[in-house]
């Protein structure tokens, strides 16, 4: 064996490489491979080792992984759309048309739209698989609850994104959805029991202070609604869903790994 090191060897033992990837060199043992995963901020949520049976497509359908993958696609394509889309009544619809017809690769908007549909489907199928394989049972019941929250957040992301094209379908869909919010028990002005939250003649749940108002930012759908939904869709809900996703993935590992009998 000569003293001359190959380029790859020099690279993997050099300061640049070892400062980024702790452990030094190409991992040779199980322990070293484990340390690579544990020391990476991106990999550490993932289990260090996967049993062979756990990645069987027949068992997992890969629906959880696909949901996350689609979420990443939606995040990237969504950020790209934000460079052209302005959330005002004057521009929203025309910007959406511009994005489809004039901006290069107008398919970006379709990727975002179809991706959103696909994510709802994969999340449902993931939930169905987890239920059918009994993977919600203890000690994984907490992660099931986190998953239900993730499902609701996915649907809320779809709901808020629905309004942004500001076309007839969007406006009427949100008209229907927000009127349902107005019928919330106790907290909706049109809902049952809203009169119970009153002191004397002063009614606290009115058209300007109920759940529907909080959702659409006014008494009618308008500029305020579009801005509110835009902020929720682009910042608020993604921020919340990412926190829950981190917990969800971490708990998979902590609760006995993916699809392993416990």
């Amino acid at each position, binding site marked *: 064996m000569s003293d001359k090191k190959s380029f790859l060897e020099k690279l993997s033992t050099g300061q640049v490489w070892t400062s980024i990837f702790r452990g030094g060199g190409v991992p040779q043992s199980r322990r070293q491979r484990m340390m690579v995963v544990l020391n990476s901020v991106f990999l550490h949520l993932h289990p260090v080792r996967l049993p062979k049976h756990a990645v069987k497509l027949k068992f997992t359908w890969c629906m959880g992984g696909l949901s996350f993958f689609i979420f990443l696609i939606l995040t990237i394509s969504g950020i790209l759309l934000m460079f052209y889309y302005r959330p005002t009544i004057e521009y929203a619809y025309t910007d959406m048309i511009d994005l489809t017809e004039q901006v290069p690769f107008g398919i970006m908007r379709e990727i975002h739209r179809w991706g959103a549909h696909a994510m709802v489907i994969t999340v449902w199928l993931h939930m169905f698989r987890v239920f059918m394989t009994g993977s919600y049972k203890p000690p994984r019941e907490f992660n099931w609850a986190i998953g239900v929250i993730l499902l609701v957040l996915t649907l809320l992301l779809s709901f808020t994104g629905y309004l942004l094209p500001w076309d007839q379908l969007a406006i*009427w869909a949100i*008209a*229907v959805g927000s*009127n*349902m919010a107005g019928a919330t028990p106790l907290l909706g002005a049109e809902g049952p029991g809203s009169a119970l939250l009153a002191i004397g003649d002063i009614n606290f749940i009115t058209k*300007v*202070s109920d759940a529907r*108002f*909080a959702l659409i*930012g*006014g*008494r*009618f759908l*308008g*500029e*305020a609604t579009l801005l509110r939904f835009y902020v929720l869709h682009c910042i608020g809900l993604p921020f919340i869903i990412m926190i829950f996703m981190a917990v969800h993935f971490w708990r998979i590992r902590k609760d006995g790994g993916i699809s392993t009998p416990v």
Partner: protein
Amino acid sequence: MPEATEKRTATIAPSSPPPAALGQADDGSSVTRRSFFSWISIGWLAFVAATGGFFTMMLRFFFPNVLFEPVQTFRAGYPDDYIVGEVDLRWKEKYGVWVVRNDDGIYALSTVCTHLGCTPNWQPSAKKFKCPCHGSGFRITGIHFEGPAPRPLERFKITLADDGQIIIDKNQKYQQEKGQWTDPEAFLKV
């Protein structure tokens, strides 16, 4: 590596005497274990109150005091502008109001379907308002008779101004099922 060893020794054994340890000061102003705990509970209470206050602020933040929405009151011309027995569509686009005149007077109907909020269409031949969303139908009076709509269309406050023009105020609505259509301001006698 002799240098490194010397350095470490130097930090462990400093030449100056160590500062007094916590809790060993002998004057009366020092923090005792007991007062520390009462201070820390006051601190926690303040923290919880501040956090609660901030969440209240956050909630209130979403209910603005000024709304930048279209005006809800408008002048709708003179009573003679409206033909007896017909549904007038001129304010439908702009204000979401149908003005209907019958033999006794004029009333202003809301164009919002009472099922889920869509806008029905007036069909003159069938003499009914028909909602395109789920098929609810309303008579010219606003009474529902087909489809999923659970109650009649709402009517708005309608009065005469000093100059004889009709004023329609959408802030005030009248619901038939609550017996409010008999209110004098729900119907303009002409």
